């Protein structure tokens, strides 16, 4: 991990270092508007993790929304083409409905987007940045990789009814093989195909362990083998990085096929009970906006970091200076400046606030600081 300026919380440390990392790979900062036309989200509702959006009318009568997502705005406005790429990163707050609290909450996000002629190297480079980003949060992390082409095609091949696919997909996302098999039977899926779906949903492990199993599930199908081949190729590029040992294969990670194609991924660190990073290749979204370019990117949920890496030890200030009317106020001001310049966090007040945790308590008298007890 890097050295940080003092006083930063973990999420601030992470965003500080990642700005440097993203810029070192040619990504430019993008500052988007906090409000966006509601129509953008309405037309792309299933791209959002939760469909609900806070809306309001602008003074000129347009229906606006408090931005629930950054990627949509950036993707809509990109000028990139397959031969003229664009690399952007952002640090923004988005407003989303929390499925747990059923209240709107502000979520602090940091992410990057690469638009252009996306090939396996470009995907591998972005995954490499995702690995480095996770390592910056915590050395105990994993990045799970999936492929939309694999699970999408397997479902299409094995489950004839479109309605049944959605329910079976839910089971896949929950690694729920018992209900998957019941639903598959009801939908007329053969036991052998239901077994393939079940094996794909529960497959989890390193690429070395899982790629042969994925090939077995593919059972000679050219489309499935192509997806496995792409994963193998990208993993091959990334194996140059020592962090690639933290990559896992997990086909239960699925996103909306209307937007995502090819590789998708999610990152986890041990201390956070849900995914802290999410991303993938989303060429389909760009073609919905009429752009002739591919896209790959990811977002990090900084608020998840701040809620799990809290600083509960230590003190709020290093030196607390008590003074009264007899103090030379000019000399007191100089003293606080001196301490601050020496790297101390200092407060000078007549009384100590009840909840404040102080390192040293001093009284300022006759131009000097004298250490005293807190209740002195």
């Amino acid at each position, binding site marked *: 991990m890097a050295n940080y300026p003092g006083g930063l919380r973990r999420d601030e440390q992470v965003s500080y270092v990642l700005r440097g990392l993203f810029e070192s790979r040619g990504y430019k900062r993008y500052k988007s508007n906090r409000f966006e036309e509601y129509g953008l989200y309405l037309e792309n509702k299933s791209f959002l993790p939760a469909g609900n959006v806070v809306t309001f009318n602008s003074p000129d009568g347009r229906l606006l929304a408090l931005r629930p997502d950054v990627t949509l705005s950036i993707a809509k406005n990109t000028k990139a083409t397959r031969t003229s790429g664009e690399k952007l990163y952002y640090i923004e707050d988005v407003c989303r409905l929390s*499925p*747990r609290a059923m209240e709107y909450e502000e979520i602090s996000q940091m992410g990057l987007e690469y638009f252009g002629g996306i090939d396996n190297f470009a995907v591998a480079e972005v995954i490499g940045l995702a690995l480095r980003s996770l390592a910056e949060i915590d050395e*105990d992390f*994993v990045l*799970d990789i999936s492929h939309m082409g694999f699970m999408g095609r397997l479902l299409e091949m094995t489950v004839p009814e479109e309605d049944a696919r959605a329910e079976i997909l839910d089971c896949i996302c*929950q*690694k*729920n093989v*018992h*209900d998957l098999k019941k639903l598959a039977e009801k939908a007329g899926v053969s036991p052998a195909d239901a077994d393939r779906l079940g094996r794909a949903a529960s497959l*989890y*492990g390193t690429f070395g362990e899982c790629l042969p199993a994925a090939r077995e599930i593919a059972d000679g199908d050219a489309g499935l083998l192509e997806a496995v081949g792409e994963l193998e190729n990208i993993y091959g590029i990334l194996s140059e990085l020592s962090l690639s040992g933290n990559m*896992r294969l997990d086909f239960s990670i699925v996103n909306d096929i209307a937007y995502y194609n090819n590789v998708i991924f999610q990152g*986890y*660190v*041990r201390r*956070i*009970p*849900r*995914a802290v990073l999410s991303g993938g290749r989303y060429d389909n979204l760009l073609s919905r906006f009429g752009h002739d370019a591919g896209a790959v990117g990811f977002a990090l949920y900084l608020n998840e970091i701040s809620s799990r890496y809290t600083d509960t030890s230590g003190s709020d200030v290093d030196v607390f200076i008590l003074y009264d009317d007899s103090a030379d106020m000019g000399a007191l001001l100089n003293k606080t400046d001196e301490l601050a310049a020496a790297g101390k966090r200092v407060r000078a007040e007549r009384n100590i606030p009840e909840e404040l945790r102080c390192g040293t308590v001093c009284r300022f008298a006759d131009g000097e600081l004298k250490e005293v007890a807190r209740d002195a």
Partner: protein
Amino acid sequence: MLNVALPKGRLGNQVYELLSKIGYECPGMLDDNRKLVFENRERGVRYFLVKPADVGVYVESGAADVGVVGKDILLEHGHSVYELLDLGLGKCRVCVASKNDWTEDTGRPLRVATKFVNIAKTYYASINREIEIIKLNGSIELAPLVGLSDVIVDIVETGSTLRENNMRVFTEIVPISARFIANKTSYRFMNETISNIAERLREETE
């Protein structure tokens, strides 16, 4: 240390016996006392005894790595967890029930009393029937008897409570049983332990 959330009561005791059989015993778990946390450092396991409806919350939030919860709770709350095994224990059904002589007036919204608001809404939406939900927290069967609702949507195990109150099942919505669930992060960082427990429990319950 593996943290396990178990529902207080008969189901929790049954599951604990299974877990202790496969090497996760914890002395004192079955004693009649008010303790809520039981730990066996040697076996690397800590049990929390929680209200059955709260098991999913403990597991989703990562306070527990794994847990056992009824499918009714998972359907009702939609917890974001992995559902790794159907234990086949605590089998029952979520049903629509009412008085024996009830007949439906399809010309007006149906009044449905339940504590499973989401299950009831999803079911009636699937058959395109307009309903008025009356959320209750217990003694659901009373609602049709005193005219509070037309029907109830509730768990039916043997049906004896319904029979004693001159009521019967009209429709079965979904069969229910206990499920072994895991937190999504714990599944990744304790994969070998959790997969092994799921496999051993499968062998014990098949």
